[in-house]
């Protein structure tokens, strides 16, 4: 059974006293009784011997009157209840004898010899002319009462002592257990999530003080760990929310883009249809005489064709605004991750795609959908540069600091997207032209030559720069450097001091 410290100490004190106090009481009882009875017996014997000597040596035996006086004195001086002298068969009794007390023909050798509570003593008196016997009886009750009242006083003292010592034990145990109880309360509050509770306790007991200090140290450690855990968790939740938001934004953009692409495609087809209508109608119009029915009809056809052209322009305006990029401060890591997820599905297993993303990275000004397209184009380019469609493509992000230019400008921070392939590389003479639209080194019909010019256009719209490093036979590295926007400041874009063929 579990009991508290103060309860244990109280029980211990009670247990100790239950053994010690009766022993003390009975010890006292023995001592008091023995000393009082010894005193009584000694007193009684001394008195009796004195009287006997008086009778033996004096001449009182001759006069019955004097004998009676002596006997009276014996009764008065020593709690006597009975005094008699038997001289030559004649008994003289004191007149002060208690009524009803008779010589019982015995002699007591110890206190409380019999139940009549009278101590009898007989002494022989020998004189040449007399053979007498002094018979005395003393009352034991006053001595008994003395003993009993002494024991009562002892009992009272012991009771008071018991009370005081129990109270002291309780106070002491309480003061011992107080810091422990305080520790307990604090630790319970901590368990309920109130980490502000201090576990340091005010106490003079060294061990408890040290225990409190150690627990307090542990609490501080725990609070640190807990805060770190909570921070990590909320960061994870934030990252997840961010990812969901990005996904939903991308889905929305993709829907708009699909609509835009469809509308744009139809509109351009319509341009191809409208051109012959306009040209044929104009040719026919030129050959039909004015003010004829045919001439008027042809004019009507032309007017409607122009109206159709306007409608097409409106559709194109819509499709462009639907797909128009809206650069915003975004985290590139999930965007690049999403692009690589799409890209991985398109390439054969013979190509090893190494992804190097270990954020968090600072946010940069970009548009998620456009960035995905940029990464896709760079990766597709890298893939097409691989010989026999095998090799390694390494894609990732890293932060870098452009050293200060010496004219007092602060160093510029960049977030770099790199795409490295182990492909053919680019001929040095060709490098300056690779970002031109319709420039391609591939065979006719294999590509449009627009991919890298699109990358360049997108990067430019973000204020980013594209550079290339290449070695024939070894491979090519494309770097897109996004200027890191300083907190609460606009973005600076500069193409200076960039290595490679920066455009």
């Amino acid at each position, binding site marked *: 059974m579990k009991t508290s410290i103060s309860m244990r100490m109280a029980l211990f004190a009670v247990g100790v006293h239950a053994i010690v106090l009766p022993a003390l009481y009975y010890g006292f009882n023995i001592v008091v009784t023995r000393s009082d009875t010894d005193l009584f017996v000694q007193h009684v014997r001394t008195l009796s011997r004195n009287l006997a000597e008086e009778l033996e040596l004096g001449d009182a035996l001759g006069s019955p009157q004097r004998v009676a006086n002596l006997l009276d004195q014996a009764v008065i001086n020593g709690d006597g209840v009975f005094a008699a002298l038997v001289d030559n068969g004649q008994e003289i009794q004191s007149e002060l004898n208690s009524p009803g007390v008779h010589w019982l023909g015995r002699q007591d050798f110890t206190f409380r010899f019999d139940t009549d509570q009278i101590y009898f003593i007989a002494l022989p008196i020998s004189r040449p002319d007399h053979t007498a016997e002094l018979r005395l009886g003393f009352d034991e009750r006053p001595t008994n009462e003395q003993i009993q009242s002494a024991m009562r006083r002892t009992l009272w003292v012991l009771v008071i002592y018991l009370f005081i010592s129990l109270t002291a034990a309780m106070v002491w145990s309480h003061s011992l257990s107080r810091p422990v109880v305080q520790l307990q309360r604090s630790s319970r509050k901590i368990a309920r999530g109130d980490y502000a509770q201090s576990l340091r306790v005010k106490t003079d007991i060294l061990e408890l003080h040290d225990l409190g200090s150690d627990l307090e140290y542990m609490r501080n450690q725990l609070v640190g760990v807990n805060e770190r855990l909570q921070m990590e968790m909320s960061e994870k939740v934030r990252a997840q929310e961010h990812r969901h938001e990005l996904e939903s934004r991308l889905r929305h953009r993709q829907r708009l*883009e699909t609509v*835009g*692409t469809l509308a*744009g*495609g139809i*509109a*351009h*087809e319509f*341009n*191809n*249809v*409208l*051109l*012959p*209508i*306009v*040209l*044929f109608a*104009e*040719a026919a119009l*030129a*050959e039909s005489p004015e003010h004829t029915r045919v001439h008027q009809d042809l004019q009507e056809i032309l007017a409607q*064709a122009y109206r159709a*052209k306007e409608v097409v322009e409106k559709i*194109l305006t819509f*499709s*462009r605004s639907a*797909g*128009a990029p809206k650069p915003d401060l975004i985290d590139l890591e999930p965007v690049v991750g999403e692009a690589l997820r799409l890209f991985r599905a398109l390439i054969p297993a013979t190509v090893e795609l190494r992804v190097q993303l270990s954020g968090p990275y600072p946010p940069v000004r970009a548009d998620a959908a*456009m960035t995905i*397209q940029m990464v*896709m*184009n760079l990766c*597709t380019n890298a893939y097409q540069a691989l010989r026999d469609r095998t090799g390694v493509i390494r894609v990732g992000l890293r932060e870098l600091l452009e050293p200060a230019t010496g004219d007092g400008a602060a160093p510029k921070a960049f977030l770099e997207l790199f795409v490295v392939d182990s492909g053919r590389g680019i001929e040095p003479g060709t490098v300056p032209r690779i970002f*031109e*639209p*319709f420039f391609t080194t591939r065979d*006719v*019909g294999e590509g*449009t*030559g*627009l991919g890298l010019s*699109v990358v360049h*256009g*997108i990067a430019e*719209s973000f204020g980013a720069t594209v550079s290339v490093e290449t070695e024939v036979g070894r491979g090519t590295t494309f770097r897109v450097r996004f200027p890191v926007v300083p907190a609460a400041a606009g973005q600076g874009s500069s193409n200076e001091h960039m290595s490679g063929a920066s455009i």
Partner: protein
Amino acid sequence: MKSVLVIEDEPAIRKALQRALVSAGHPVQVANNGTEGLEALKTQTADIVIVDIIMPRVNGVDTIRAIVREFPNVRIIAISGGGNFSPAEYQPHAIKTEAYLAAATVAGAHAVLTKPFRTQDVIHAISTVTNLPSGNGSLI
């Protein structure tokens, strides 16, 4: 009158341009694509080439580059109505008609026209490129 070669993959546009230019008095040849167009220039030279940008296989910009390289005296008019080469390709909306025509100009086209245009527009463009000072009008 200046002779004109129309390189265009869309038959209706080919026919319409031929009709309009013949009516204006120009001798006109037609070609289905860039390769055919270059072959036609080798057999029978033309003063002016009207070339579409978006064509299968050899696109208009590559065709213009080849013409500038092989026939430097020929004047070139690029026409485009925008659009994508193929839906399978990942193309941005950033590529507009103007971008195609700008690429054509960089490659060496002397004039550009956005589809749809009127007969008078193409006649005007022909007279403009004809009146350009001799030599190469290309920007590169």
